[in-house]
């Protein structure tokens, strides 16, 4: 081993001796050690407002008093200006696909997500940032950046104070949004013409 620095050490090369009770047995080569973190989240004022509005099929954002940008979900502060937000803005449940991803690998414990499925950043009409959601009622291969979508909500009797009330986003059939990356990155007034 001293002669060849690249040779694996004996213990890792499998050059080990074992007691008789172990010698004849099929060797264990891997072990599953799952890690779980179960937590309770306290939403605070801004997200509480947002979640209560969700139960009424309304989407609330908040406006930055310095830049005019509208953030959703709201956190009560502007991440860019570092100030508390200036006011609540009700947003439409329509918008466009800003970017998207097609998942082809299933997730354990999420049998409801059947691959292939499309998750996307949706920029809501009136918002300055993307909002995560599934694009549904269209083949994932047909999803494109700029595609106009609207929210598909749970039935009224199933609404909760949760963003899970939005089952996904389906195409509206309107013409695609023309996206100017430079304009989008620095957008001061998110109001649509």
């Amino acid at each position: 081993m001293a002669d060849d620095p690249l040779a694996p050490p004996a213990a890792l090369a499998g050059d080990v001796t074992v007691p008789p009770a172990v010698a004849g047995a099929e060797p264990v080569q891997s072990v599953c050690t799952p890690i779980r973190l179960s937590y309770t989240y306290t939403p605070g004022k801004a997200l509480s407002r947002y979640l209560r509005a969700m139960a009424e099929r309304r989407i609330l954002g908040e406006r930055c008093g310095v830049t005019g940008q509208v953030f959703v979900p709201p956190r009560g502060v502007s991440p860019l200006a570092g100030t508390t937000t200036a006011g609540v803005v009700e947003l439409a449940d329509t918008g466009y696909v800003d970017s998207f991803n097609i998942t082809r690998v299933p997730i354990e414990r999420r049998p409801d997500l059947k691959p292939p499925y499309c998750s996307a950043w949706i920029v809501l009409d009136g918002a300055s940032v993307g909002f995560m959601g599934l694009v549904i009622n269209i083949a994932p291969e047909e999803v494109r950046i700029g595609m106009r979508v609207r929210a598909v909500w749970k039935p009224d009797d199933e609404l909760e104070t949760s963003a899970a009330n939005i089952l996904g986003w389906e195409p509206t059939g309107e013409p695609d949004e023309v996206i100017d990356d430079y304009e989008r990155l620095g957008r001061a007034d998110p109001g649509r013409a």
Partner: protein
Amino acid sequence: MLEYPFTRSTGPVIGAFLTGLREGVICGIRRADGTVLCPPLEYDPLTAEPLTELVEVGQSGEVLTWAWNGEPRPMQPFDRPFAWALIRLDGADTSMLHAVFADSPSDMSTGMRVRAVWRNEREGHIADIAGFDPVDADLS
């Protein structure tokens, strides 16, 4: 809930230890000076020399230190209060962390004797040892 279903490769030394657990034996590994580390390590913690000689150790041992766990959490070895303990098995020179099934802290003491309790269904995992039972000194 956040969850990551990690699968780790065990390598020949830890793999042999886990294989032993599945077969109902506990293995340590011998250092150059003859002392035995249990659980086994791939390297000597003092000299960094690779270690390769796995040996069987006893299934009973001595509690070196312990802490009472009065409020067990999900996934812990026992759903009633129990003790975590460092247990030096007979034939080993180092100690293993595991659970001791005692009814109360007053049943625990440093130096007490304990014996491994095996699960019936074993898969090559540290939990193949369900825990350790106190051994009545008069009967052992």
